[in-house]
């Protein structure tokens, strides 16, 4: 391996490497036991994997980081509200929630896809703002519509004033229904096998999907929209489809996430989902243009180690856990910023190189024609 290759490796994987270094520094500072960390990581992997994996397909299709998975999360939450109100429990409840939220997720995903098609080149900012906008509509429905226009019978879920869902909804009915389906315990660590199996199914789906015609279309669109259009691929429709699939997967992912946690913060659970999932994917070495399944696994572990460890480390270092909290926020956003910068910088450098070569080719041509 010569120097150039080593340098390239470090630049391409700068983010995960930095994270590993940070973790190595921070873990001893936090003073948490290895076993505790492993258990935490198992739980968090089960919680977040499905959600993070839902980000992959839009990246293949060249839509960048889909901050719009929040829309899928909101759809899933609406399904959960109904299922909890109807007292449908256990795995049946969770499955029912998934099925009834799917139409909502599909519609929201379609809206997002169409909006993003109108904002080519600005997809990420647009999906970010779209998340806020739909959050407003979600609030309109859940905080003002439910109980009034939308029939909700359960009094424990409604606010004292008679309409609007409470801030925290107890999901005791479906808590752990997927996780504990096939319990596995290695040593002192509980592993939610069923959840991982479901994630495995998703991975197989993604790998299979890449090979289908639609998947190949998305790849083509992701690489170059004009070339794809010339090849007869319906570019607009393919882009919308990628977002719809992503939103539906995020909807399922959010339901899995919530069944693990057991309580739903009606107005907050979905807000951070976009940011956390994207940060985790980027930490795992993915970029705006390229992401794979290992990125998701590695990313979640690294990101969440930092997440768990930094408040404690902050306390040990400076005597104030609050600093650790802000440090965690700083790192989450900083990582995304860094990954975006590296990606944009790489594109810019390639454009420069292409322009340089173009200019050289032109000058050599003109000098040739002078001679000739």
């Amino acid at each position, binding site marked *: 391996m010569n120097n150039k290759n080593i340098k390239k490796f470090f630049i391409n994987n700068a983010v995960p490497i930095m994270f590993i270094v940070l973790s190595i520094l921070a873990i001893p500072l936090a003073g948490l036991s290895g076993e505790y960390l492993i258990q935490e990581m198992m739980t968090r992997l089960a919680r977040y994997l499905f959600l993070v994996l839902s980000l992959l397909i839009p990246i293949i299709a060249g839509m960048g980081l889909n901050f719009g998975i929040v829309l899928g999360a909101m759809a899933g939450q609406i399904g959960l509200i109904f299922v909890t109100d109807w*007292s449908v*429990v256990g795995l*049946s409840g969770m499955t029912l929630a998934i099925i009834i939220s799917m139409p909502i997720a599909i519609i929201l995903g379609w809206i997002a896809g169409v909006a993003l098609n109108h904002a080519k080149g600005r997809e990420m900012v647009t999906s970010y703002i779209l998340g806020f906008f739909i959050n407003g509509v979600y609030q309109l429905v859940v905080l003002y519509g439910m109980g009034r226009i939308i029939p909700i019978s359960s009094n424990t879920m409604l606010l004292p004033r008679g309409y609007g869902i409470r801030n925290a909804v107890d999901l005791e009915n479906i808590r752990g229904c997927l996780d504990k389906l096939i319990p596995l315990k290695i040593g002192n660590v509980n592993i939610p096998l069923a959840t991982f199996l479901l994630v495995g199914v998703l991975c197989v789906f993604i790998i299979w999907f890449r090979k289908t015609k639609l998947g190949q279309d998305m790849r083509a669109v992701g690489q170059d929209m004009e070339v794809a259009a010339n090849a007869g691929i319906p570019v607009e429709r393919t882009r919308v489809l990628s977002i719809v699939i992503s939103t539906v997967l995020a909807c399922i992912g959010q339901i899995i996430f919530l069944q693990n946690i057991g309580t739903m913060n009606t107005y907050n659970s979905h807000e951070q989902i976009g940011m956390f999932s994207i940060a985790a994917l980027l930490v795992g070495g993915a970029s705006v243009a390229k992401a794979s399944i290992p990125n998701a696994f590695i990313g979640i572990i690294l990101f969440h180690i930092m997440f768990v460890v930094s408040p404690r480390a902050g306390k040990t270092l400076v005597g104030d856990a609050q600093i650790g909290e802000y440090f965690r926020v700083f790192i989450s956003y900083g990582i995304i910023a860094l990954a975006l910068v590296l990606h944009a910088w790489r594109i810019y450098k390639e454009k420069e190189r292409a322009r340089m070569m173009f200019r050289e080719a032109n000058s050599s041509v003109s000098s040739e024609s002078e001679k000739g």
Partner: protein
Amino acid sequence: MRRWLIRLGIVVGFIVICFLLYSFGKQYEIFVDNKTVTISETTYEAKYAAVYNIDDSEETEIKLKKRKKSYVVGPNHVFVLKYVDENGKDVEIKKEFNLSTDRESLIVNIPVLIEGGSEWLIDK
């Protein structure tokens, strides 16, 4: 044409699944009362302490004037009551019951059950 039929079939299939999930997954509250009650102008006296279980659950003791709460999931269940009557004989009553999805909370009145009344299971 065929594609639309298949799509319609899938949608209908999903709707059917939803109904099945709803019927088989819905949870009901069952309160078990061992109190003296009056239903339809007949008074049933609570006379015996008893023990009950629903489906395969553990036996729960219920003394006089007490109320216990259980949860059941799905439509079909079996309620088993065991008590000792005045003559010291062990009596066991087994009742199968079906719940339709429009019900939410129900009460089992033990005295009514013991005397063989038809309204041993009523809505709250």
